[in-house]
């Protein structure tokens, strides 16, 4: 069986605009949640989000390119550039032929779409710019990265709400493991902080008025976040042959559908996806020492996910450290799984498991071993990263620590 390792990581997020800053924040429990500055919040009941700050798109793209780029593409492309540069990979013509780009996005280019629709509906403009469609398409990041690096292998985008990035990473992992490609560039990005989208989330009544406290008894809901993370996934021997540095191994991927309800999650569906990820990785439950939880901090998710973890791991469950890094980088929807894969792999790599920030009090309904507020030094053999989407679509990645 071919094995797949991560040889490059790139991140743009509310807690840092590159991999090093992201890890520095996430490992020290520093949250990026603060007042929303992107749009006026006078008419929105919640005022906080995890916004990307201090990133000037024109430092990374020329004016002409920027016309075609929504914020979610800016985040995704910058993250992909960092991942590729970080991996040190040199694309030969042959490698370009078979390397593709697989991305996740829930919303696509909502910022540009929102602006153009507002021009049309409110300002009564009669013309729509030709940049609108290419900027808004959900596959924009995959297309731009493939063009920038001349990658002509399997390239596509998956949109499964909050599971998008995990589905993208899982499918890219399978492409490399099954031998379709030796290398795939994969991850996800999202820029959901538009007025229209914030109003839509308000009506779901799952956004916290203050901050995100996953698994904490006083949790009041999720906090939206934005950003992106991209990875270079590489077949192990290919990586070894070029002397690449290896952050960790993607060992398995599992998915399932609840077939139950649009918004109420189901223990059985979440548990099935975790079990399938373990089976795909040929991994014993006892190997797992860390789970980066979906952990949205809604009442429903955190109880369901805790029960699902106990269902899957039984007597071993209390030995597993659990955290939700959404407490720091927010819930970045289609980018969530990518940011959390970065937190998980870097945690395994550094032997330091990132905490759940903003945690105040254990909830007996969430009976898992939560890493509260401060990271723990630990060297688990393996970890899971969970994503459970609205619509009942679940995607779980299994990682192994690299001892090489």
């Amino acid at each position, binding site marked *: 069986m071919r094995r797949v390792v991560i040889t490059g990581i790139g991140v743009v997020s509310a807690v840092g605009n590159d991999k090093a800053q992201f890890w520095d924040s996430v490992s020290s429990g520093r949250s990026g949640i603060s007042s929303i500055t992107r749009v006026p919040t006078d008419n929105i*009941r919640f005022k906080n989000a995890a916004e990307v700050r201090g990133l000037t798109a024109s430092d990374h793209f020329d004016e002409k390119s920027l016309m075609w780029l929504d914020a979610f593409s800016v985040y995704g492309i910058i993250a992909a550039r960092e991942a590729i540069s970080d991996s040190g990979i040199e694309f030969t013509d042959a490698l370009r032929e078979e390397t593709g780009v697989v991305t996740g996005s829930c919303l696509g280019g909502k910022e540009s779409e929102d602006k153009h629709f507002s021009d049309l509906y409110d300002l009564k403009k009669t013309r729509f710019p030709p940049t609108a469609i290419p900027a808004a398409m959900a596959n924009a990041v995959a297309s731009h990265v493939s063009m920038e690096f001349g990658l002509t292998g399997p390239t596509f985008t998956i949109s499964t709400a909050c599971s998008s990035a995990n589905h993208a990473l899982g499918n890219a992992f399978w492409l490399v493991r099954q031998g379709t490609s030796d290398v795939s560039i994969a991850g996800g990005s999202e820029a959901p902080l538009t007025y229209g989208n914030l109003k839509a989330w308000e*009506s*779901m*009544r799952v956004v916290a*008025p203050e901050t995100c406290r996953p698994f904490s008894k006083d949790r*009041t*809901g999720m906090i939206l976040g934005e950003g992106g993370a991209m990875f270079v996934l590489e077949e192990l021997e290919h990586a070894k042959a070029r002397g690449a540095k290896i952050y960790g191994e993607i060992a398995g991927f599992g998915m399932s559908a609840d077939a139950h*309800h*649009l*918004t*109420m999650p189901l223990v059985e569906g979440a548990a099935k996806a975790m079990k399938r990820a373990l089976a795909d990785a040929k991994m014993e439950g006892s190997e797992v020492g860390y789970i980066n939880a979906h952990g949205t901090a809604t009442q*429903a998710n955190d109880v369901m996910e805790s029960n699902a973890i106990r269902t899957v791991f039984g007597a071993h469950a209390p030995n597993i450290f659990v955290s939700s890094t959404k407490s720091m980088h927010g819930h970045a929807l289609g980018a969530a799984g990518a940011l959390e894969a970065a937190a998980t792999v870097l945690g395994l790599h550094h032997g330091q498991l990132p905490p759940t920030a903003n945690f105040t009090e254990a909830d007996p309904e969430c009976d898992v071993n939560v890493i509260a507020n401060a990271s723990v030094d630990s060297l688990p053999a393996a970890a899971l990263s969970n994503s459970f989407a609205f619509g009942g679509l679940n995607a779980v990645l299994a990682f192994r620590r690299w001892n090489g």
Partner: protein
Amino acid sequence: MSENPVAEKIINIFAQFKKVSPEEISMETTFEELGFDSLDGLNLIFELEEEFDIVVPDDKVQSMRSVREVVEGIETLLADKAAAEVGT
């Protein structure tokens, strides 16, 4: 049917949503008896916000599980709104 106009409007909205006659719904009817799940509840609260031009805070929604609880909650919010409008 109630003499209370707020209750009457609310019961009519619920009846329309459930495709039943308003006579089948009383003040004591619960969401569970009506077969409303959490998403139905959100949709109904949205309709009530539109109907009465009020904002139902997230924490109030949690305590609205029967027709009576909804009517009482909405009446409180309408009273708050009226008080705010006359500046008291």
